[in-house]
């Protein structure tokens, strides 16, 4: 005779078996009163139920089927529900067995950890720490300070000077559109600066009495760059931006976009793109080899001024200067009364023309000036430089994700605010995050195909 288990004591006597309190009508045992009448009552009811008619014992020794023999083992290995460890303690049925659901998560992890080797544990810990620190790094001000610091990210070394409040001041009132342009442009630069840790210097270009003389209009640029040089003694590069500009790709850092590979991006030989037909290089025999060379000394480190050329020559809507003795000299020489007295009638673009004049005539200026392809720092909308149609060297193309757009000359008969608004929206559209892309490019499209209705998610 083989019993799969020892028989229970006499029915009716019994012990407190927690699994059997079916009809007691309560979900937890009354542990506070172990000797109370609750337990016998339970047994009574169960016996009544089981005993249906004949009053046979609840087990049969004669039942030799497979299930009969193995029922207990099988059922105890099955997952159980509704049993909390606090009162399963007494029997500890799950002890030593792998059961998925009755061990809480923490316990399970503890179990896994217990079985792991020390080495694996340490490695896992290191991995976890690394992951955690990366997450913390990118979701806290740490990333900002990293990018900002001079010797890590180098953000403090770059100052963006934004000429705001153009035309404000004594000359005229700004309308709602001008305010909107200014607000959007400034916000755009502020966001960009906050992301990469650069310095932002917003300067007031309003008409001032100092510059009211016809010769000195729009020469504030030079003075502002000089002031910024003094104000940010640690900065190396200064990026001038006109108000009508918009950073289309805020995810580009200037270091990645330009400075890390400066020598690859710039061209110093103006013959590469020469709308002004400047004869380059110098051929005067009294100049040394470096001044006669088309690329100066050819080293990226000697570049102190970077600008771009549009269809009609130099464009100073977006240019870089590096702090150096050379820059001081250039800013000093840029405005000269003798030059201006002779040329102010011809120089419609004032400081731009004066710089062209310096570049044409002064070998020391040419040696340290470099150009960037216009679309790297100064793309034009299709309205500017429009005489010859769309030019791939000049005009913005959203497929190439141009960095910055400069709505140059929009105040002369074009709609500045309209352009600014369009580019702002386009920039947001191009730089949607993956979730937005999923919603708009997939879910909304599928929804449209199914129901024929456009939805905004």
């Amino acid at each position: 005779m083989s019993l799969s288990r020892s028989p229970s004591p006499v029915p009716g006597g019994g012990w407190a078996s927690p699994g059997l309190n079916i009809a007691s009508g309560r979900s937890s045992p009354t542990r506070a009163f172990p000797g109370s009448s609750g337990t016998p009552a339970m047994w009574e009811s169960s016996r009544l139920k089981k005993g249906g008619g004949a009053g046979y014992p609840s087990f049969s020794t004669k039942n030799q089927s497979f299930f009969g023999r193995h029922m207990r083992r099988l059922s105890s290995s099955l997952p159980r529900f509704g049993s909390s460890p606090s009162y399963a303690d007494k029997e500890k049925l799950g002890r030593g067995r792998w059961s998925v659901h009755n061990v809480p998560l923490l316990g399970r992890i503890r179990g896994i950890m217990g079985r792991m080797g020390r080495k694996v544990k340490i490695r896992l810990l290191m991995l976890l720490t690394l992951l955690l620190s990366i997450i913390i790094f990118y979701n806290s001000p740490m990333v900002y300070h990293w990018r900002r610091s001079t010797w890590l990210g180098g953000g403090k070394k770059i100052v963006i000077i934004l000429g705001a409040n153009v035309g404000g001041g004594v000359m005229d009132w700004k309308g709602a559109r001008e305010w909107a342009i200014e607000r959007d442009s400034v916000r755009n630069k502020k966001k960009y600066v906050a992301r990469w840790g650069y310095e932002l210097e917003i300067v007031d270009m309003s008409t001032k009495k100092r510059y009211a003389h016809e010769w000195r209009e729009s020469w504030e640029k030079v003075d502002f760059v000089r002031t910024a040089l003094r104000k940010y003694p640690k900065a190396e590069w200064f990026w001038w931006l006109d108000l009508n500009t918009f950073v289309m790709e805020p995810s580009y850092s200037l270091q990645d976009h330009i400075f890390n590979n400066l020598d690859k991006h710039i061209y110093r030989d103006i013959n590469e793109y020469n709308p002004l037909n400047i004869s380059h290089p110098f051929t005067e025999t009294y100049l040394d080899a470096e001044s006669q060379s088309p690329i100066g000394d050819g080293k990226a480190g000697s570049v102190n001024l970077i600008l771009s050329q549009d269809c009609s020559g130099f464009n100073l809507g977006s240019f870089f200067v590096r702090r150096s003795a050379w820059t001081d000299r250039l800013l000093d020489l840029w405005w000269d009364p003798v030059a201006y007295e002779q040329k102010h009638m011809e120089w419609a673009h004032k400081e731009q023309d004066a710089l062209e004049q310096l570049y044409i005539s002064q070998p020391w200026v040419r040696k340290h000036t470099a150009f960037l392809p216009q679309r790297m720092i100064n793309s034009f909308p299709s309205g500017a430089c429009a005489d010859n149609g769309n030019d791939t060297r000049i005009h913005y193309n959203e497929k190439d994700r141009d960095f910055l757009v400069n709505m140059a000359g929009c105040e002369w008969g074009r709609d500045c605010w309209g352009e600014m608004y369009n580019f702002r929206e386009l920039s947001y559209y191009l730089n949607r995050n993956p979730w937005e892309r999923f919603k708009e490019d997939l879910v909304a499209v599928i929804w449209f195909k199914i129901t024929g209705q456009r939805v905004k998610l």
Partner: protein
Amino acid sequence: MHFALPPRKTSQPPPYLPRASRLPGLRRSRLKVIALAGLFFLTLIYLVSRPSRSRNAVPTPRVPKGNPPVVLVTVLDETKYSKAYLETVKENRMQYAEKHGYQTLLAKVGDYDLAGAPGSWTTVVAMRDALTKFPDCHYVWHLDASGFVMNPKLKIEEHIMKAAKLDELMKKDVPVVPPDSIIKTFSHLKGQDVDLVLTQDKEGLSAGSLIVRNGEWARFFLETWFGPLYRSYNFQKAEAHALEHIVQWHPTILSRMAIIDQRVINAYGKGGKEEEYKDGDLVIRFPECTAAGAQSCETQSQVFVQAWRRVFAST
């Protein structure tokens, strides 16, 4: 076959375990520490010297070796002076240069294309040319053809351009153009920062005798001075007034300029007490001499030419 008992240990156990590796410090546990430290060190090196930094480093300016120490520049204007006179000038420069191992650059008006500007502008471009021809010189000294070197013992680099000497010589906080220009020379300028040395006479800055220190600044200064818009402006005294103009309007030039006493490099044949030549002065000039007549340079300088020939021969 069974071995119920483990084999016996040898009765003479080896005294120590044999060494695992040759170097005693390189145990497995220590190797890890060393590897970690090395990694840390490499990271540090990477952070300190990132590639972008070295590639974009500002190139250090070339330091001239001082060979020759000084280049003498004189423009020989054949329309203004007679041939014989210019020969004596040439001789004077050559002899002085030879005594100290200097070089000379004697240009003629017409050697350079001035784009229609007066011939006196040749002096500026000749100085620029001297920097190109002698890139290793320390100083370029322009001395006008109306002057002679009188004292061959004095050396430019020692008796004038030495920083300590310049500190003594230079006049601080004086009006650039006498008597009443509101632009004054810098009062905190140090001798070592001076790149341009010149003098004033009664009328203003004198470009007849000036010394420029070779370097980036010198190129900037001379090229700016030679700017086409200055040449075309019709300054009354051409390059001399252009010089006064750039010095007064552009602090980057003023801040490198020292004005020294006139007699040090620019004594005049006749004039006030401060400007008149005395024996032992380096230079004598006759700024107002004419091409011919009683006031011609030749007649004015006659006595002094004999004097310098005597002095040069005796030393």
